[in-house]
């Protein structure tokens, strides 16, 4: 199964990446190589193997519903590109 340039373009859009035609060509080639590599798995017979939900053989890890300190607001906002001291600020969003 080979990925088309259009499929790679669609994935790039979902990841919010803007690719030039040259980049798209390079990415399509590279992604196809990766997919080809992973496709080797098809050679394994998985008829009687249950789908795996998680690689670790652990389940039911919970924490108690107990309060822990949050960050002071100035610390929480410190790395933000833009804030007004109370909120994170972002460019206006069109829904």
């Amino acid at each position, binding site marked *: 199964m080979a990925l088309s340039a259009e499929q790679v373009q669609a994935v790039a859009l979902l990841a919010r990446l803007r690719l030039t035609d040259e980049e798209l060509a390079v990415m399509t080639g590279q992604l196809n190589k990766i997919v080809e590599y992973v496709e080797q798995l098809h050679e394994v017979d998985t008829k009687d193997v249950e789908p795996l939900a*998680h690689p670790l053989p652990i389940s039911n*890890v919970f924490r108690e519903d107990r309060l822990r300190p949050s960050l002071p607001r100035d610390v929480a906002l410190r790395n933000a590109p833009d804030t007004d001291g109370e909120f994170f600020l972002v460019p206006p969003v069109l829904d």
Partner: protein
Amino acid sequence: MATSTEATPYTIVIGLEVHVQLLTETKLFCGCRNRFGDPPNTNVCPICLGMPGVLPVMNQKAFQLALRAAVALNCQIARFTKWDRKNYYYPDLPKNYQISQYDLPFSHDGYLEIPTADGGTKRVGIIRVHLEEDAGKLLHAERGGKSQVDLNRAGTPLLEIVTKPDMNSPAEARTFLEELRLLLRYLEVSDCNMQEGSLRCDANINLHVQHNGQTVATPIVEVKNMNSFKAVEAAMAYEARRQYEEWLRTGAKLGEVPKETRGWDENRAVTVSQRRKEEASDYRYFPEPDLVPVVVSEQMLQEVRSQIGEFPAQRRLRLAAEYGIPEYDARVIVELGKAFADYFEQFARGLENPKNASNWMLQDVQRTLNAKGWTIEQFPVRPEKLADLVSRIERREINTHAAREVFAEMIESGRDPGAIIAERGLTMVSDEQQLKAIVDQVLDENPKVLEDFKKKKGKKRKQVAGFVRGLIMRQTKGRADAALVERLVNEALVARTGVPLE
């Protein structure tokens, strides 16, 4: 086409997607506080801010509440459940993905029974209930400005409940939501407050139109932005009319046009087109590697079932029947939660007339809880003590005025009502001779009252009697038997002035 049809020539088909916030102390994957209305961005930490390298850990209480809700909704509980990442870009979602459940939700295929207009019941199917995290809140900017992001809500536990398209009228959609709220409040799963957004609802609606002996389905429309139960009902009624008119105009059928999303405009009472989806969104779900799956054991289920006990719909009926209180009171008591209803029952058992218990619960107790921000579990007066107090009103040992004073002190000091009544001398004055003497004395000292009573008519004349009762109450420091005072004052006024009460 027939010139006039009384009944509409179509059936309305409605399915709901409901989100409720869970009543946990902390968020779903971190220990930040889960609370509405705190100052923006004060309940945040590296986990819910989506910082790299952090590890979410599931809140056990949240999972238990989710199980409780699903069991109460008669759902099949999956023995094995996992979480998935739903990927999309929006500023209220700091990780750029929401941790949700995709192909293995923890529950599916349930139902909720709702009362119908003809006095029967109807089952509304539940397709699935799953547990996910909520997003933050975005405050949209004025033109040209920037939007503000508050991440206090980001990562709080959210239950998504998806119904089958089983509702056939706007009223049924509303009734479903009312029953769901009753159930989830009673079970203390959620406070289901639409104004604060702890219950949110979107609806899918279309029509099955009878046309030339055939049933034609109109395109399904998703309606958003309904902020009250009333709005849901109004939006569904509007949308049904609009779709029928559109069908008459265009004849468009299900599958012929892209799915449309419309928003309810409360002020104009119309739905407004927001977008048409050309294709389904591509969320690229994949299993959440940071969370391990949950295996639900029979023991966990037993525990949840034992916590539920009697269902609210049954309890509501039982309270009304067993205690003879109005159905409205029974409904409100049950809606205030299991613990509140438990308190009511213990309280009511200690009284001659259980209606007094529901009155006290829904007025004095409820007012105190609201003022202090307490739950009923935090209320310091035990139901037996409150019954001790109120039964003294029933036995005419104290009047309601004095009881309120004792009630206030019981909340403050936790002392027994009997001791407080003795210490403050609040025992009711109900000796007729004693009260009659006080009435005579008050009228002797206030001759103007008699003139007023003679001059005024109707309601005004009655107000004069009320004024005299107030004077008596002041004389007796509020301890007089109010019913007896009323009779004695009326008798004295009529006797002294020679004019009737009315």
